[in-house]
């Protein structure tokens, strides 16, 4: 009994941190760069993608023995497009302003390679329970990454976070951070931080291994 729950937790944490779709796998760059100009847009896009990811993982995993491999990609795209349409209508119900600010990128969730990638690489080969955990982990990992970008870009580019002003009127806004180039700068900064952390961890492990071998010798 302990093993499946352990494994489910691993699947969840994998997407959230260890194999984060944006900072580690560098997937789904189109919405990551385009819709992360404010924290609210980033959060909405992240949650919309997470919903589509979980639902399509459930559907693909449930139908994995029903779909022949020759038509699997077409079937997955059909399933993903259906849930994207659901998200599209739902966002219009929640807020038309939010819908306008996300623009075409809601429809473009269909071609987000994170979703098709998880359907093909994970959900089509695993149980529904594991696929849900994988979808949740990857979806929340994607949302976390978008929030990291959106937060930094909104704070520096507009002096606010989730619309709340943080600085005095004298604060000179870095307009470039809201422009497309700001997305690249911020993403580069975060990737630098993640890679530096990974390298430091690898060096630490290397040193620990060396000292262990010296002790044994």
């Amino acid at each position, binding site marked *: 009994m302990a093993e499946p729950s352990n494994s489910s937790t691993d699947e969840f944490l994998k997407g959230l941190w260890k194999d984060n779709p944006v900072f580690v796998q560098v997937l789904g760059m189109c919405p990551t760069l385009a819709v992360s100009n404010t924290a609210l847009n980033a959060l909405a896009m992240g949650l919309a993608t997470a919903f589509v990811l979980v639902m399509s993982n459930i559907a693909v995993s449930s*139908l994995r023995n*029903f779909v022949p491999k020759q038509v699997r990609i*077409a079937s997955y795209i059909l399933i993903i497009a259906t849930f994207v349409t*659901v998200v599209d209508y739902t966002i219009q*119900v929640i807020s038309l302003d939010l819908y306008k600010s996300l623009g075409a990128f809601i429809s473009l969730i269909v071609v987000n390679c994170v979703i098709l990638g998880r359907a093909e690489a994970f959900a089509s080969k695993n149980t529904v329970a594991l696929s849900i955990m994988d979808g949740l982990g990857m979806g929340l990992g994607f949302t976390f990454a978008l929030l990291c970008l959106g937060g930094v870009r909104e704070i520096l580019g507009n002096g606010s976070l989730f619309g709340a002003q943080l600085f005095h009127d004298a604060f000179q806004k870095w307009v470039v951070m809201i422009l497309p180039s700001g997305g690249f700068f911020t993403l580069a900064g975060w990737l630098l931080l993640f890679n530096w952390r990974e390298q430091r961890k690898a060096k630490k492990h290397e040193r620990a291994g060396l000292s262990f071998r010296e002790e044994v010798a």
Partner: protein
Amino acid sequence: MSQVELASRPASSSTWHMYRAMVGIGVFCGLIIVTVFQLTRPVIERNKAEALQKAIFHVLPQASTSTAYRLDESGAFDPLDRDLGGEQRVYAGYDGEHELLGFAVEAEGMGYQDVIRLIYGYSFAKQAIIGIQILESKETPGLGDKIQSDPDFLKNFQRLDVSLSEDRTRLAKPIVPVRHGQKTHPWEVDSITGATISSTAIADILNRSAQYWVPRIQNNLNEFEERE
């Protein structure tokens, strides 16, 4: 014969499985989409109507009710019981005493990045545009999008002259953009430095729309009396 049978059997079985999967998933997905569409449509339509109503009252702040009018082929205005969209229409704004105050008109045109859609308020008494609101714009953040927030630029539309020519078929003076700080006439639009293309686009959109609508509205004012 047996060879043909052996070769065709797995193929037809595989075709049937593919057919079954694609049709089955297609029907399932279609059902989900139709159900969600039916459930969300009334709320989405209500949201759109509320957003439009809010915009109308923003550009006609003294109005308390509004009625949509359609321009028919003969050039007359008919009230629309239901706003079905896609038709040439204006919104007449009335005060609490059912007195006609002015009109809200939707207009659109190309901006720097994409199409800019806006609504403006027209006062027939002042012969002027008395307010605008941008409904849709993808202008550059921090530069072109100042058309929505720059107080100096928005001051242009507190009273932008659109009086008619003597023959009442066009504007006496077309709305024209001028460089920032060089506005001298009430029909000129003072541009924003750093967002010249976007502010020129707004002036052009308003000019095109006002040239079309203002003569038609002014020459048919009696058709907008509110029906009790």
